[in-house]
Every structure is written in C-alpha cells, then in structure tokens.
C-alpha cells in the first residue's frame, strides 16, 4: 500500500474515511463555477480522491441550506472528519482553503513565506 504523505507530515492511509465535502452554490454564477473548479483542483492535489463531494444548488433547493446554516455563497462545508468546518468564498486563496480543511497548520498559512518548504524543512 502506498503511503501518501502530505507536506505537513500527516498521512492519509486507506483506513481513514474519506472527507465529506459539500459545496453550496447559487446558480451558475461565475463565482460558483470558479469555486467548483478551484475545489476540484485542490482536492485533486491534496486529497487524491479521498473525498466525497456534493454540490448543492440553493436556487433549486433553498431549504437544504437550513441544515448547515448557509448564508454566504459559495460555502464549502466539511462534514467529515469532525468538527464541521465552513469555508466561504470562491476558494481562490488555496492556503486558507487548506487550513480550513485542516490540511495545513494555521500558523503556517498565516505567514507570507511559501509554506511547503518550511514544513518540509521541519521534517
């Protein structure tokens, strides 16, 4: 079994359950489409398929936004693993997305220096 190592040292093994993600959009606005494409890219890069993504269009199903208390559009909700995290915006700021998904340490994302090298150095 190939062990996938993430740059911050966390490892994803096949035993871990896949990340459950829900992306709330409102229609086919450019922001929503951008969010979707950004998300797909980030997931491809960092999650390597270990995720379940659901895209919910609130224009079509407005009541579905109630459960997750969705106010901002677009919002990405990570249901699993707990705790629930919400990431709002078009997901263009990759660092913040990763922090939000708990794929990266918070402090590292805040610093302006490229994070990969720093964490790689830690190892």
């Amino acid at each position, binding site marked *: 079994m190939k062990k996938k190592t993430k740059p911050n040292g966390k490892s994803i093994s096949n035993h871990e359950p896949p990340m459950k993600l829900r992306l*709330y959009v*409102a229609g086919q606005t450019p*922001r929503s489409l951008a*969010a979707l494409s*950004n998300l797909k890219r980030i997931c491809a890069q960092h999650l390597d398929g270990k995720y379940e993504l659901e895209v919910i269009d*609130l*224009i079509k199903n*407005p*009541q579905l*936004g*109630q459960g997750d*208390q*969705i*106010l*901002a*559009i*677009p*919002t990405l909700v990570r249901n699993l693993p707990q*705790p*629930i*995290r*919400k*990431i*709002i*915006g*078009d*997901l*263009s*700021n*990759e660092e*913040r*997305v990763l*922090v*939000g998904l708990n794929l990266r340490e918070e402090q590292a994302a805040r610093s302006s220096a490229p994070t990969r090298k720093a964490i790689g150095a830690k190892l």
Partner: protein
Amino acid sequence: MAKRAKAVEAEIASSGESTFFPLDKVQTGIKGLDDISGGGLPRGRTTIVCGGPGCGKTMLGMEFLIRGAEEFNEPGVLVAFEETPQEMQRNVASLGFDVKKLIDRKKLFLDYIYIEPSEIQETGDYDLEGLFIRLQHAVDSVGAKRVCLDTLEALFSGFSNDGVLRAELRRLFRWLKDRNLTTVVTAEKGEKTLTRHGLEEYVSDCVILLDHRIRDQISTRRLRIVKYRGTSHGADEYPFLIDRQGISVLPVTSLRMEHEVSLERVSTGIADLDEMLGGKGIYRGSSVLISGTAGSGKTTMSASFVDAACRRGECCLFVGFEESVSQVARNMSSVGLDLGQWTRKGLLAHEAWRPTQYGIESHLLRIHKLVDEVKPEHLIIDPVTNLTGAGGEEVYSMLVRLLDYLKSRKITAIFTSLTANGSEDLEKSEVGISSLIDTWILCRDLEFNGERNRCVFVLKSRGMAHSNQIREFLMSDQGIRLVPPYIGAERVLTGSSRTAQEAKEKADLLVRQHEIEQRQEALSRKRNALEAQIKMLRADFSAEEQELERIIHQQQARERVLEAERDAMNRVRSGSPESSPDATMTKAAGDGK
C-alpha cells in the same frame, strides 16, 4: 429641446405632487405606538429599532409580527440570529402570545440562523446570497408581508469582510423594499452612533430608539422616534412598559382642549354635600379634588361617591396607593358602605399597589390601561399625592395628560390629596394641580375647647353655585352627614360645644313648653272651680225660688180661704136664705170653686 424641457418640468411637477401624498403606513398594533408614529411604521420600508441590552427591541419586533398576523392578517417572518425559535416562543409565551398556533396556521415563520465565527474561514470572494435565498424561502412559505431581523448585527461578528458585508446589507434592504416587505431590524446602540455598526446609514426611513434607565432605583423605559422620514411624528420620549399584554406606550393626548362637556349633574353620595354643591352635585366628567390632612375623611367621601354611582349602575374604577383593597372595604363598612357588593356585581374595579413599586410613568400607564380595559364612568385615585414620592416634578405634566385623557372620555375623576398639617398650607396643594380641578372640596380641622372636629367646605366648584358654609363632618355607621355648625352669638361652635348648645336649647324649649302646659292646666282648673261655684249658686237660688213660690202659693191659698170665709160670714151676717149655714156653706163652696 423645448419639448424635453417641458417633459422634465412635468416630471418635476408630478414628483413634487407625489411628496404631498401621505406616506403609506402599517399599523403595528402596539398600544400607543401607532398614535405616536401617526399611523404606524412605513409600509414596505425598513425600520431600525435600536437600544441597549434588555430594552425590549426583540419584544417590539416580535409583537409587530404577532399582531400583524393576528390582527391585520399580515403573515410575518422572524429571522433570529441570537435565540433559537424555542427560546423565542418561550419568551413571548409569558406575554400570552400563542406563537405555536400562528406557526401551525402558517401565519408566522420563525427562522434561526446560527453564525459561529470560529467555524468560518474566508477564502476569496463571496456574497450573502444564502441569506437571501433563505429569506425568500421563509417569505414564500407563509406569504409574509412583515419581516423582523433580530439582530442583523450578528452578521458583523460572523463575517470579517466589512466591504462585502456593507454591500450585501445595502442589497438586502433594497431587496426587502422591492418586495414591499415592512421590516423591523433590531440593533445594539452604539457609543456615539445610533447603532454600533452604523446600520442607520442604509436604513434611514425610520429609526426608533428604546431606552431603559434607572432613576432613584426605579427603572423606566422610554421610546423615542428619532427619525421618521416623510411624516410628522411625536418627537418626544414616551414612557412605555412591557407587561402581560406586551408593549404599551403612553399615548399622546390631544394638545387642543376640544373636549365635549356634559351638563348632567351626578350625586356625590352624600346628600348634605350635594346640597352644598348647588343642590344637585357635581358635573359628570368633571374633575374633583378632595384634599385634607390625615384622617379627615377623604377616602370615605370618595367611597360614598362610588357607592352612589354603582347604585345608579355606573361602572367605577378605584385605584388606591395607600390601602389595600380589603382594608378599604373593611374601613368603609364601618360607615355603612358595602363596596364588596359592587365588586361582585362587576360595577367596581378596585386596584391597589404601592407607589414606590414603579416609576411615575408606569403608574400612569397602568392607570391608562386599566381605564381602557374597564371602561369606567368614574375614576378615583386615592391618594394622588403619593405619586410625588415616585416621580417628583414630572407628576404635574403626567397628571395633566391623565386629566386630559379622562376629560376627552367624559370620565369623572376624583382625586384625593393628602396635605401637610398646618391650616395655612391646606390650600397649597403639593402637586399644584388645583388649577386643573373643577371642584375642590377641602377638609379642615377646627380646634376649639379641647377638641378637634373635622369640617368640610367647598373651596371652588366651577360652573355652579356652591355653599360657602363650613360644615361639620360626621361619620357614623349610618353614613356621612355634613351638619351645619351652630352659629352662636360670638362664634361658630362645632363638636361637643355644638351638641351641648343644641342640648341646652332643647332643654329650654322643653321648659317653656312645660310652663305653658302648666298655665293651661291652671286656667282650666279655675274654670272648673268657677263653674262649680256657679252651679252651687244656682242651686241655692233655685231652692230659694222654690221656697218662695211655695210660700206665695200658700199665701194665695190662705187668702182664698180667708176670702171665702169672709164671704160666708158676710152672708151669714146679712141673714139671707142663703145665709143659712148650709146654704152659705154650699155657696161658699160654690164660690170657693
């Protein structure tokens, strides 16, 4: 060019005309607020309700929605950011609002939006379309016409991007306006600005400020319409209270004194007092002040009035600030007044509470509410001077408003006033409302000869002739009497001096009567004696008369006999045949016949 100018002119003219149309308003149903705002909140626009914590902003918003749903058939949506729907329901359930029923009937929609800032990570551009979608869904589900957002400032704590937030807020208010939803938005009061986050920049149609301050350890709530574009409104601070029926704002009374007055006179319940008031009593709908020192009978007089009014079938409201309901009832029964029977028949509403319990505005508000509920024809406040302990200088203006209100409803007002000891100050009423009063009855004590007696007189009574007599006030278990005092040679006597004097006069009268009787008796005795004497004399006289007649008779008889004998003798002497003794005898006998 000319055409275009004309078109522009026409537009300006027409737009100028439109500003003269009255603003379309939505009634809130909140007592007093519709009066102050000139009809309610602006339709289709947003109103900000701001204030400190615990001022009643949420309460106002909720009541706006609930009453809209129940009374005006306008369903509403509440979007709460701080409390869950269950908490909301519980809060208003204590006020008697059955929110659950409204929700079931699809008249009300409670939505709870929970924003947990720690959960949120902002990555890039976003907008608050989710909120709009949610709101649309809520509005559509009940067909809402009214919306309450409580409190919109929670958004500021959740989302840190100020620029986005403000843009979205602007969009939200336009969104609400486009759908013609009358909205109430609650906000925390800021340090220097009306709201902490400056919401009033976007919403400038109507701003209401609620205040909750403590003064002299008593809390008072006030409401002020800071701004209401396009209409005239009461710009003062109005006190309000929150009680079992929700929010009540002290209503504005008409500033013009255009009350209708009645010409009817009603009895005060004390016959002697009616006599002093031109013989008929006081005017219906007028104001009466009964003032006096402690124990001078003010409560008793007002209770007599109540008794008389209830007997006529008129409803009364008795508000006491000194004695409890049962105490007054007990005390009045000692003068023969049974107030309990009227309470039982529903003609008397008797309320009592301590004046120090609330601020002056709350007192007056409560009285207003009671008057609206009970709809009495007469209102008694006993005593009114206790309110000064709670309010100070504002009492006067508050009482003016109350009296105004009562006069406009033609409700007779009877106030009792406790004045300080000291006969000179009795006419200086503490509250200074004596100029507002139509009839002033003063109870004064007269000290004389080791006694202190209560006296009553009518100081003034507008519109009627009244007595200027000072009468003595007597209470017994048969009721109240106002007895004219004895006006003696030198002074007016009251109390025991009067009774003594009256007793003395009575005794004198008796003595004189006795004398006359005696004389009459003497006279009749004399008459009797006289008559007896006369009788005796007559008897004597008649006896003598009889004797005399008998003697006369005898004499006459003898004379006849003698004559006869003489005749006989003459015949015998003359020797005629007839002179034979037998013949003479028979002749004498024949002559003698």
